[in-house]
């Protein structure tokens, strides 16, 4: 048995000709893949919408619905448009091949298909599909559907750009001592529930969580997708986080557990946002003074004995309805001038 170049996938072969269908199915099965087949485009689309496939091998010349129509339908289908398609045909005319590629086909193999070439092309396509699926899964976990969508269309190139946005840092007060006083599995369970609540509050207001560290979260409002009222969105998200933690504490109290307390710092302004890392592993992040300030404000909640602290730029972007208490200028490490700090009333919305 020859060595497999890549792990097997679930493939769909579409061809109206039985000999072609059998032959291609056989070649792919010999390469270790699991293969289903359809005899025209209409049947193929039904199968694709019903079951999950990793790759489509598509013939062009077919009655009922030909390959071009299938490619068009796939391109217009949000669920299926990322499915890699390899066209296997003996089309006459380069313009037809060009049309396949323009309609989104990943590759074109002319029939009779060379098994070696087939294997290589399928290996590459499946690998690409796997990477795309991984990226989508990451996006699904860390961003709102809108952001995930935007990133998918704009691509994942490394490099940053200057944006105006709001950054929020939050964490659980006294988490270390809490974690030490209870069994580890309880700590993980607590964190999971906590994260779920916080993610809801953050993405519900258009924010993106860019960093998770222990009990700490960093999130950005206004990048990668611009948000007109990023300051107010961040503050409203913070208020909702506090409210959700209060509700969570009612449950904890009923179960005889101590309440948790959180601290939140928000700063707004210019920052560099983008992907950093390597081409293999990258993360979306924001860098700059504004980000540092948000982190300092969060730390300062302990000193100020307030739950939510914001900077002047964030305060000036808020509507009147949100009650803000000026706490005066505070000298922060790394800042040459003292910074005006404001506390937001968590309940005043």
């Amino acid at each position, binding site marked *: 048995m020859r060595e497999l170049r890549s792990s097997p996938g679930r493939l769909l072969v579409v061809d109206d*000709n039985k*000999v072609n269908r059998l032959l291609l199915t*056989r070649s792919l099965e*010999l390469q270790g893949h699991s293969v289903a087949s359809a005899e025209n485009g209409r049947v193929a689309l039904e199968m694709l919408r019903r079951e999950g496939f990793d790759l489509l091998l598509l013939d062009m010349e077919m009655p009922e619905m030909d390959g071009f129509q299938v490619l068009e339908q796939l391109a217009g289908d949000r669920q299926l448009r990322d499915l890699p398609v390899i066209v296997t045909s*003996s089309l006459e005319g380069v313009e037809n091949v060009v049309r396949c590629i323009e309609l989104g086909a990943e590759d074109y193999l002319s029939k009779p298909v060379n*098994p070696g070439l087939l294997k290589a092309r399928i290996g590459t396509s499946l690998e690409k599909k796997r990477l795309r699926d991984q990226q989508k899964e990451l996006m699904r976990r860390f961003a709102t559907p809108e952001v995930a969508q935007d990133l998918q269309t704009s691509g994942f190139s490394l490099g940053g750009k200057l944006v105006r946005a709001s950054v929020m840092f939050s964490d659980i007060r006294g988490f270390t001592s809490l974690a030490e006083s209870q069994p580890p599995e309880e700590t993980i369970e607590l964190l999971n529930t906590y994260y779920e609540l916080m993610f809801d509050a953050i993405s519900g207001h258009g924010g993106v969580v860019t960093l998770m560290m222990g009990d700490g979260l960093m999130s950005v409002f206004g990048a990668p997708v611009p948000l007109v009222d990023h300051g107010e969105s961040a503050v409203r998200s913070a208020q909702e986080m506090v409210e959700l933690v209060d509700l969570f504490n009612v449950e904890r109290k009923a179960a005889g557990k101590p309440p948790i307390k959180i601290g939140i710092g928000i700063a707004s302004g210019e920052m560099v946002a983008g992907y950093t890392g390597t081409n293999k592993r990258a993360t979306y992040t924001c860098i700059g003074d504004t980000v540092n300030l948000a982190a300092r404000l969060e730390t300062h909640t302990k000193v100020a004995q307030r739950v939510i602290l914001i900077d002047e730029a964030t305060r000036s972007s808020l509507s009147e309805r949100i009650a803000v208490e000026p706490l005066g200028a505070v000298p922060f490490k790394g800042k040459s001038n003292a910074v005006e700090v404001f506390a937001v009333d968590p309940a005043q919305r």
Partner: protein
Amino acid sequence: MSAPAIDAATFEALKETTGAEFVVELVDTFLQEAPTMLEDLRRALAAKDAEKFRRTAHSLKSNSNTFGALTLGAMARELELTSAAKVSEGSAAPVDALAEEYSRVAAALSALRHA
């Protein structure tokens, strides 16, 4: 001297990559399907259906090349590329010639199948 109906190297390569047993199954499928295709060509010609004529010739070309029936494949390709003219002329001669070459191919494939 006419070229062999089946190119031995192509047929051997097919057997090599997909397995002897499978090739028997594949040949049987082709021998079942090809007469229908020839029939479809005649019907498309009579009905002046150039698209159907072209598509059928295309399928036959593709299958012929798979087994190394290179002459049959070339003839089918010629019909595919000139389908409109062939249909408007309406002459059965090109399809008759194709059917005759197919008989040669079918005999050769049957022999190889039992080999």
